[in-house]
């Protein structure tokens, strides 16, 4: 900042404008460059507001989800099997009903496998390398990729057990 003129206490408006002109010009250029960069990113298929690196926070959250679900399901299975063993020592009218309920609990737990596979697919799409190879996104043209192995389908794309049974019998 140039020193104040010795015989003045302040700059005139014209002098201030002249001093600020280069800064204003640089600011204008920066705004233009920002707009051009945002347009370039969008043209390349990205988003001007998205991070350039894989969403590390999202992957960390998903890994924690997988870990906690895995632990919870295995705990449930352990306790259900423990109750089942304890029931073997008893004889009472409702015993079979309780055993049947334990079987329902085990059946409910098997959805964990589907959930785990879907989470692997999401993590693979987000660039997570810490998942089984067979869940990583397949590279187009990869001759070793098996198109039959795609994990759980969306309900609209999957056939039912009844349809599978008919195919097996045909």
């Amino acid at each position, binding site marked *: 900042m140039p020193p104040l003129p010795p015989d003045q206490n302040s700059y005139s408006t014209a002098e201030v404008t002249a001093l600020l002109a280069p800064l204003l010009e640089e600011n204008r250029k920066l705004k233009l460059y920002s707009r051009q960069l945002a347009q370039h990113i969008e043209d390349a298929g990205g988003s001007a507001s998205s991070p350039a690196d894989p969403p590390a926070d999202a992957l960390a959250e998903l890994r924690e989800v997988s870990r906690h679900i*895995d632990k919870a399901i295995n705990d449930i299975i352990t306790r259900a099997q423990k109750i089942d063993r304890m029931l073997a020592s008893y004889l009472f009218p409702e015993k079979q009903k309780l055993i049947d309920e334990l079987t329902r609990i085990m059946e409910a737990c098997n959805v964990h496998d*589907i959930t*785990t596979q879907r989470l692997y697919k999401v993590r693979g799409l987000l660039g997570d390398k810490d998942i089984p190879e067979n869940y990583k996104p397949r590279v187009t043209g990869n001759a070793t990729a098996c198109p039959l192995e*795609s994990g*759980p389908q969306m309900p609209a794309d999957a056939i*039912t057990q009844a349809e*599978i049974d008919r*195919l097996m019998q045909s």
Partner: protein
Amino acid sequence: MKINPLDFVLVVDDSSSMVRIISGIVNKLGYKNIDTAASGADALKKARHTSYKLILSDWNMENMSGIEFLKHIRTLQGAPTNHDVPFVLITAEAKPENVIAAKQSGVSGYIVKPFSADKLQKTIEAL
């Protein structure tokens, strides 16, 4: 298929919780000798040394898929004779082409996940 408690069954799945669930259901059906494996490759090693009466396998696994394991089993030579063992795929793969490919590879039963204990029992009994 008549269940003999002394028969050996092989349960193959890379999910430890699925192995526990399937083994538990199979145990309740009456089987007491249940081997497990976490990949097709591990399962194949076991099948070369043990004669199984039933194999229940996942499809989508690292280190040899269930269908690759099935194809190897069907061409297994020598003792123990597992090449014609009843083989049921228990899998999340639910497209018609999956079922057709499995049939062509010699699968005996195909159950889609999530499954019920009742479905597994009926499938085994029908083998």
